[in-house]
């Protein structure tokens, strides 16, 4: 009966803080949710709102303890059938199936509130594309490495605005093609320097893949290490963006169809 609703979708750099696995209750069948919603709109929405969040006439049901503790109408049913006369709620003569459908709809509402990774994002395109282009070519110095007609041509046709927004800030996985790897040069105390792409690094060991494809590792206490991170400018820009820059650049990038 238990299922995994969320996995570690917030995994970034190996960090999973708030998105750990949730052993959750079953998602109700969609046909029951649909029937329940229709019935809710007709008989309940007048007081509880079409989204069940309540309004001036009736309480929020999405965060109601009765609704949350309910199992397929076990607690909702008696309330619906008896009503709550002292709070102005009449009794409703509903069948067991109708009660279960209502419970399914309300369960779907609570799960929609809980599952933040599925919250739809609103309009991200609030910036000024011309100002974004000016930043790209000016203060941001993005054109030092990038070109709207070169490496970024067609960018907006490959990514949604939400993907573009996180990727232009820091393109962890590259720009949709091959990741542009960090390179490094190791100079041992004796012997020639070795350059290559950086495969691993910590305080003690560094591992490179040289131009011939050989893996080479070194103890860091016996070498001089020079790292060239092609994304260093992106990190620097994180500290410089104004809120306007942030949205203007996105507005410009979505024009690169």
């Amino acid at each position, binding site marked *: 009966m238990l299922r995994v609703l969320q996995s570690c979708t917030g995994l970034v750099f190996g960090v999973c803080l708030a998105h750990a696995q949730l*052993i959750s209750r079953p998602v109700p069948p969609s046909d029951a949710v649909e029937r329940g919603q229709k019935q809710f709109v007709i008989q309940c929405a007048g007081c509880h709102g079409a989204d069940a969040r309540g309004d001036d006439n009736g309480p929020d049901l999405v965060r109601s303890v009765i609704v949350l503790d309910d199992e397929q109408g076990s607690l909702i049913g008696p309330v619906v059938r008896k009503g709550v006369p002292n709070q102005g709620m009449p009794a409703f003569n509903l069948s067991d199936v109708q009660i279960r459908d209502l419970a399914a709809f309300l369960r779907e509402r609570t799960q929609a*509130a809980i599952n933040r990774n599925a919250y739809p994002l609103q309009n991200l395109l609030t910036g000024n594309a011309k100002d974004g282009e000016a930043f790209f070519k000016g203060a941001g110095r993005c054109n030092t490495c990038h070109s709207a007609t070169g490496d970024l041509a067609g960018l907006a046709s490959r990514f949604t605005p939400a993907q573009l927004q996180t990727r232009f800030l820091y393109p962890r996985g590259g720009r949709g093609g091959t990741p542009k790897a960090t390179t490094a040069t190791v100079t041992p105390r004796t012997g020639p320097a070795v350059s290559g792409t950086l495969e691993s690094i910590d305080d003690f060991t560094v591992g490179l893949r040289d131009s011939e494809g050989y893996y080479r590792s070194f103890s860091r206490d016996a070498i001089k290490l020079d790292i060239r991170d092609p994304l260093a400018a992106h990190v620097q820009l*994180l500290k410089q963006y104004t809120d306007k820059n942030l949205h203007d650049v996105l507005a410009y990038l979505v024009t690169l169809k």
Partner: protein
Amino acid sequence: MKHAVLAVLYLAGALAAQPLNPAKLLQPPTDSWPTYNGDYTGRRFSPLKQINQATVNTLNLAWTRRFTAGGGRGGVGSVQIKATPLEVNGILYFATPDNAWAVDARSGRELWHYTWETTGGLHVGNRGFGMYGDWLYFETPDCYLVSLDAKTGKVRWNRQIADVKQEYFCGPAPMVIKNHIITGVGGDSLDVPGYLESHDPETGALQWRWNTTPRPGEPGSETWPSRTSMEHGGGMTWHSGTYDPELNLYYFGTGNPNPVYAPQSRSGNNLYTCSIVALNPDTGKLVWYYQVSPHDTHDFDNVETPVLIDGEFKGQPRKMLAQAARNGYFVLLDRTNGKNLLTAPFVEALNWSKGLDADGRPIPNPDMDAKPDGTLVSPTEGGAANWFAPSFSPLTGLFYTHASESYGLDWKTDLSKSPEGYGGRNQTIWMQNVLQAIDYKTGKIVWSHRYPNQGGNRSGLLSTAGGLLFGGDPTSNVFAMDPANGKMLWHAGLQSSVSNGPITFELGGRQYMVVGAGDSLYAFTLPGH
């Protein structure tokens, strides 16, 4: 007759040797590590020095053992030992979600394994046990307080402490103060109210409950706009605190207010969320509070360990409390009354804050609240610090914490006047981990160790009188540094990164250091002892 007397003495000796002597809780940890932080101060400082700067380069693996249960259901997620094991009379006690073990501290041999049949809940982690005599206490993800017999691992009783169907989940190590088993709860998903409870060690019966948000008419209710906002205001209690037996005050940090990213229905400072609070553990009554993140809008739970420091401040001896908060500020308080002595940032670029008010409290910048089109916030949701244990060495006077410089995007998704749930989303953009050594007297960073790779785990820390600072790096090394300057003195590569805080204890003249990494415990000791 003589034999009978001897037998009685032996029996008494054997019995006396097994249960946790409560006096151990009041001493610096040496032959035991009897509570989450080793003692009540939260300093995670050990007076042991057999393993020291001269001997650490011969530190050897004594044993390692895997514990593969507790990674969650449905095949998702690997086991992460986030619990700090207790070590009492040569036995280690620790837990993962729904699972608990006792193992021989000298060999790693499993003595018992207890499994809880779950009914749900977020299986994010279990921080371990509290212990009272022969009895152990831990919390399950579906929010039961379970008491086990330390000798056998058999369950004595369980008691529900929150309703998992309301989206609570549980996992802090219960705090044992006198005859109080203090339990906390977690859960940010559906705007439930936070609270702390105390339970009877024999029966589990409720002794008191303290709500982290007030009810209408109570002090603090003036910092909320409505009954609904405070009853759905969050303020979780998902981490253990510290205790001053002289003042008889229990100190702990409270979580963020709800809805997390859509604050339009909760104008005001939202007491007592994101605060350090001092309670009388006998009554559960609030004695003082200090709010580190007034009106939080960034998920900056303020549950980081409030570390008790006795020392000088501006030439005067003081009883103090220090915290490196998730919001990026180091806070030093007078723990007798909660008055602020010092506040200073411990990472750069805290763009969510406009500075400090006259009481040293960070002032939030509302322009940096989540917006529908995204706000670039530093630090990101995971914070500059988080639950992983800091350490304070009275020998160096330095407060050590792992920290992150980071940026994240916060989007508001619920624009209604009565938002529900998180009300928004967050995505970490970039993160760089560092180890900060902070002078508690000035708040200045005395030294900083910047890891050469981005992201990764942040471990707990341990300092010792042997002139060592133990921790784990963001990849998979456990290390010992010189706590005076951050120089690396020793390291060992493990199967995965350190996922708890290292502990140390002495058994039969031999000092051990034990650390958890992923699904394994590793015990290190010196050769020839």
